């Protein structure tokens, strides 16, 4: 039993912070594309006054809600768990809702483009179907051959830890669409599919690791990875993507999970 915390403590002065939030000016440049209007993409830019706590998503909303309603992008939860708003921000794949403006260089225009390697539908919206197709191909579900126990299957805390990192994936495609191999070869499974295969291959309850390793041993599988680490840097969930891919490669070579 942990001990009860004190009923009353002395708080440090200024604890919690808050109060007046500073404002600053930014220039937001957004890559626009709408085949209903033109086959050519172009840049639009807006000068905006934003708050110190604002994120890139807030700037996009400010544009959409106050300047140009036709600017199109996906978003939902707005705090980095739903995976809707992966985009290229100043040349790096990030979630718009997790990127604070104050952490960017606001002396220069902030460039926002759709993620690369997937067909652009309109502005920042891409066709996610090829991405989900790769995901589905690695059989992203638990396959267990034994008898189903009456209660839960047992799994030790250590066994659970073995694949913890790759359970964090939110399927935002930031990793896959940052991968230079994926840009040039759309057939490549891409990091996200391999991450999700890893999640099951190293789950002690799963019995289909060999099948998944066989799928990833394909010519469009893990061997395409050139270990550029773009994916690990891009992951908004901090998953060590390149490490997960290396572990899958190792497992294929040694056939040991």
């Amino acid at each position: 039993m942990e001990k009860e915390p004190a009923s009353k403590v002395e708080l440090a002065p200024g604890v919690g912070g808050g109060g007046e939030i500073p404002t600053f000016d930014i220039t937001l440049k957004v890559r626009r594309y709408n085949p209903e209007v033109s086959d050519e993409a172009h840049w639009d830019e807006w000068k905006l006054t934003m708050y110190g706590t604002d994120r890139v998503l807030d700037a996009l909303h400010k544009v959409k809600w106050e300047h140009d309603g036709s600017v199109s992008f996906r978003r939902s939860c707005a705090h980095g768990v739903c995976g809707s708003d992966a985009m290229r921000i100043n040349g790096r794949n990030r979630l718009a809702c997790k990127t604070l403006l104050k952490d960017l260089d606001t002396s220069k225009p902030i460039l926002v483009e759709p993620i690369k390697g997937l067909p652009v539908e309109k502005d920042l919206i891409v066709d996610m179907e090829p991405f989900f197709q790769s995901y589905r191909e690695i059989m992203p579900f638990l396959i267990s051959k034994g008898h189903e126990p009456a209660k839960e299957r047992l799994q030790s805390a250590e066994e659970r830890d073995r694949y913890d990192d790759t359970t964090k994936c939110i399927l935002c495609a930031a990793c896959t669409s940052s991968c230079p191999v994926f840009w040039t070869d759309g057939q490549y499974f891409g990091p996200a599919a391999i991450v999700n295969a890893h999640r099951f291959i190293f789950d002690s309850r799963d019995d289909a690791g060999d099948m998944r390793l066989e799928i990833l041993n394909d010519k469009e599988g893990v061997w395409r990875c050139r270990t550029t680490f773009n994916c690990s840097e891009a992951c908004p969930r901090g998953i060590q993507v390149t490490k997960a891919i290396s572990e899958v490669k190792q497992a294929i070579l040694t056939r040991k999970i």
Partner: protein
Amino acid sequence: MQVHKYDVVIVGAGGAGMRAAIESGQRAHTAVLTKLYPTRSHTGAAQGGMCAALANVEEDNWEWHTFDTVKGGDYLVDQDAAEVMAKEAIEAVLDLEKMGLPFNRTPEGRIDQRRFGGHTRDHGKAPVRRSCYAADRTGHMILQTLYQNCVKHNVEFYNEYYVLDLLMVDQEVTVDGVTRIQKRVAGVVSYDLASGELHVFQAKSVVFASGGVGKVYKTTSNAHTLTGDGMGIAFRRGIPLEDMEFFQFHPTGLAGLGILLSEAARGEGAILRNSEGERFMERYAPTIKDLAPRDIVARSMANEVREGRGAGPNKDYVLLDLTHLEPAHIDAKLPDITEFARTYLGVEPYTEPVPVFPTAHYAMGGIPTNIKAEVLADNDTVVPGLYAAGEVACVSVHGSNRLGTNSLLDINVFGKRAGLAAAEYALTADFVEIPENPTVETEELLNRARSSEGGERVALIRKELQDVMDANVQVFRTEETLLEALRVIDTLEERYTRITVQDKGKRFNLDLLEAVELGFLLDMAKVMTAAALHRKESRGGHFREDYPERDDENFMTHSMAYKDPSATATSGVRLETKPVIFTRYQPMERKY
């Protein structure tokens, strides 16, 4: 217009919708329609856990869980539904484990469990470890696991198909020589966001699982997409909405932002302090303190701020203190939420308390159903073929205040029930002929939004709506504030008829989507406020300062809100009541 034909159509691909789809998809020809992608739904944002009396770490049983749920809901819970939920909770957790959900484990390898607000041992004696969890991303793991199993079972998804109308026809039925008119389901109308085309889905069964309405408030934990669409569609088609005055404010939203910090933080030992460093919950709930139910904690926090003991330069928040917990423990059990505090407020939870304030979180009310998840057209008439589950529904297991973790449980238990019942019905029933011109109302709705050139901005009206709801229909309410809210909502509705949607295209017209969503938000804000005005007592999440006591004599009833243009005093919302179902617990004073 394209027409599709399925036995079962499920509207929404969050936890409830996908849990239903896993059952229905294996038994009947099933389609899932979602305005997002399946893994984007807000189930994924749930953090703390899912309660079930597994008794893996200490003594527990489902009857205690039922009692806690009933008492937590301040006795407005339908007790037959609470029993079903608490009993089937155990199987629901085991189902998820078998589907592959990576629960945290005990040293023996069993599913680990932790404490959560309002969940107690032996009818309130002390907190109990009942919540099954996967770190502080249990909702994420549930959403992923359910999607994975939908992939396994080849469930058909129509992604970014926004359902805008429910098709029902009136049929004459004769039972025991008495002929009456009965509503029957024919299908739904949806708008394909990618192409801007309308698609009609003819179906024997329709399951609404489209989530909540948290975007009527400014400070909210809810996703941008939670705009009460499903509730709004049902309401416009004459289905009543139950208990809409009860909206939950989660105590620990990041101050000023509303982003949720799970109750699991308090389950793991974090406590709340005011500007004087005092653990103020000792005064409000002496037995279980910081683990009191959410309505009580949220009200206590708001009261501390009102009485001048708020922290910060504007004295407008309180502090969530984790500094007495081991950093390693925080990292193992609460990694995501401590990351939120760092990212969005720049606060280091290891060493500094985190500024928090209540944030709009969950609609206890919704489309009325019975325990088979069948939708009711009044107090007891079932609409054959129509089902609802999850936050969009009101079964009612949450009464006037939902306990933490019971929503993840609700979606799993009643999502499964809805999927099974919808498939079973579809296997015996015939298709109902879809009405002539099934899309006429939807086209009118879209054309009005597209062609109006009055110059009013959707975003501005929405902001004013959210401001007025935050100011007047929040934790504390009075007749005066509620009437003020209704007055403003009426003017906003009038301005809504004069909006201009700038995007005139068909392809991914999300500008138009937001305009349609605002229409639902306005309707729902009106229903919530009218219902709050009607309930002249304080119970659970609904606190009337002009009627601060619970009044069982006059208000131990559910409210049922009907669309009725003749009810002019309450902006076209007519309020009726529905009896609460009691099985084993008589109302008692609610103390913790």
